[in-house]
């Protein structure tokens, strides 16, 4: 990345609705050619304002930005003609889907023949062929969103801004669009992408900027963010046999002494309790594994399975914004969980969307 061509750079960029009331402040980010930058943040974090600033829809009240070598403030039409924007709000003309694509290409000055073939490509790619003669408002929510993205791709651009482009899309459509965007990025298109769906940001983005209450908290690759802010990880240990109460006690105390929070079993050992499997959470889960292996061997217990959850972007995100119970994200209540070790923002438990686990492959 050291020799990458920077196509967008902001320095302390900010926008205040009125004096002292900032929607975004001190925003310093970079975007390389062919790179996908994700903007993550809660509702009202400043993502849409950032997109509107960078597409000249809003004039910055402070800071500077250069896009494709031009000053954002003076770039004007010359700059905008090299950008593509899918806004959060649905925008449409009162003609059929096909005519909308054609009309939009005409407005952008795309030659007629190019527009015609591109429209066919987009209709197929975004699975809109069967609704090509319908008016956009007669489409389903997901179809309308796909139409918005398809229409923007009718013209050439160097940077594409996508403000929550996958809202309302089913998993298959979302995957297809993300794959296409990834492919376009590989061919040199730079993309700025806002989303609430952290998994898709993880899938698509080369780097992620986390915004919170109008400030930039961190910018890094998804992997680095997960490592830096991913928080505690969950470990599940399964022994081949049930542990006697004395060994349960010893094992749990051993885990506690090493800083782990035991999730299962809860409380004192009782008759009928499953004492062959244990779950705990730890900031240093991997350093505990040698001790577990040694301890089980020394006590004559077969370690049947040991799995450790991967750090997730969601965990990192929640860790960064200090979220958890009041995070405002659109997940079911069951996926929100507060840490038992006092740290906010741990990954959700196994079996939920964030609980990606890595099997450590312990043989029987």
């Amino acid at each position: 990345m050291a020799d990458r061509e920077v196509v967008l750079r902001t320095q302390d960029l900010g926008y205040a609705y009125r004096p002292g009331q900032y929607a975004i402040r001190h925003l310093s980010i970079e975007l390389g050619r062919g790179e996908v930058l994700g903007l993550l943040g809660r509702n009202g974090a400043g993502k849409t304002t950032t997109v509107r600033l960078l597409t000249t829809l809003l004039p910055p009240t402070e800071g500077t930005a250069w896009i494709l070598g031009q000053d954002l403030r003076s770039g004007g039409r010359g700059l905008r003609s090299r950008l593509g924007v899918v806004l959060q709000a649905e925008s449409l003309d009162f003609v059929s889907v096909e005519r909308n694509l054609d009309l939009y290409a005409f407005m952008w000055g795309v030659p007629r023949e190019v527009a015609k073939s591109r429209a066919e490509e987009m209709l197929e790619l975004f699975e809109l062929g069967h609704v090509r003669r319908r008016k956009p408002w007669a489409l389903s929510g997901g179809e309308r969103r796909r139409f918005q993205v398809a229409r923007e791709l009718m013209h050439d651009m160097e940077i594409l801004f996508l403000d929550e482009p996958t809202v309302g899309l089913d998993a298959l459509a979302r995957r297809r669009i993300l794959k296409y965007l990834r492919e376009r990025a590989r061919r040199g298109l730079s993309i700025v992408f806002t989303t609430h769906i952290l998994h898709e940001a993880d899938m698509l983005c080369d780097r992620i900027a986390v915004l919170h209450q109008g400030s930039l908290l961190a910018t890094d690759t998804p992997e680095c963010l997960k490592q830096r802010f991913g928080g505690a990880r969950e470990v599940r240990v399964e022994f081949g046999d049930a542990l006697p109460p004395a060994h349960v006690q010893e094992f749990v105390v051993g885990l506690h002494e090493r800083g782990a929070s035991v999730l299962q079993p809860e409380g004192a050992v009782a008759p009928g309790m499953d004492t062959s499997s244990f779950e705990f959470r730890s900031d240093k889960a991997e350093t505990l594994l040698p001790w577990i292996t040694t301890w089980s061997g020394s006590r004559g217990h077969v370690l049947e399975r040991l799995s450790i959850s991967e750090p997730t972007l969601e965990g990192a995100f929640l860790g960064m914004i200090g979220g958890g119970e009041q995070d405002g994200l659109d997940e079911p209540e069951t996926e929100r969980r507060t840490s038992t070790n006092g740290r906010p923002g741990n990954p959700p438990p196994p079996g939920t969307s964030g609980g990606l686990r890595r099997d450590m492959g312990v043989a029987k």
Partner: protein
Amino acid sequence: MTLPPILRLVVRNFVSNFDPISVVVRFGQPAVTIVVLGTMFSSIVPASQTGGQSYTSFLVPGMVAFQMVSGGVVSGNLFWLDRRWAMVEQIFSGPFLRSEYLAGLVLTTLLFSLFGVAVMVGVAVPLIGLPAISLLDLATVLATVGLGGIFFAGLLIALGTRLRSANAYFSIQSFLQLFLIFLSTVYYPVGPSTPRALAAVINVNPLTFAAFAIRHAFANQLGPAVLVNLGILGALAAVSFVAAAWGFRSMNLGPIQ
């Protein structure tokens, strides 16, 4: 060859706004008014009340003048819908200047107004014959409708930049249309028996200035009074256009209902 941005926007305005039903209603309604109202009232309104001509002959220039309102409404509504459906934002994020979008709307107004003039004259010819007007008279008619269209479009666009609710916009738009047409000399002349308060309002209505200029052009009676009326209309159009331009500069592009 790529058209200049303003023309691309005008084409887009036409394509996106061309709804056969609304076009038929918008231009058909005044055409029917000329035929029905003109015929019926010609038999009961004495020519002495309408400057020595039939009521139909009196009404046609009025309905031609009214096309400034029709053209203005087309652009005002188009702008409102563009704003409501976020096309304003989408266009502003593209290779267009705000001034070009505004100019595109004005040009759209002019074209719709002129089309309306052609329809009105076309409907009137079988009833009153082809008006024997000079090129200067014709230019006066077109200039009057054009300036009037800019005035009304500018007014509605300026309103559209401020209002954030469709109900408010369309209520005010309907009221303004009613006010302009009924408190003007489109349907009836102001005579000695007209109540003074009503006459005062009618005499400051821009549509009255337009109807006055067009009636005189239709009657080959251009003179200083027509120029004054045209001047006033031009000044009103300028003020209204500046208001629309100012509204554009300071417009909040956020969502509206």
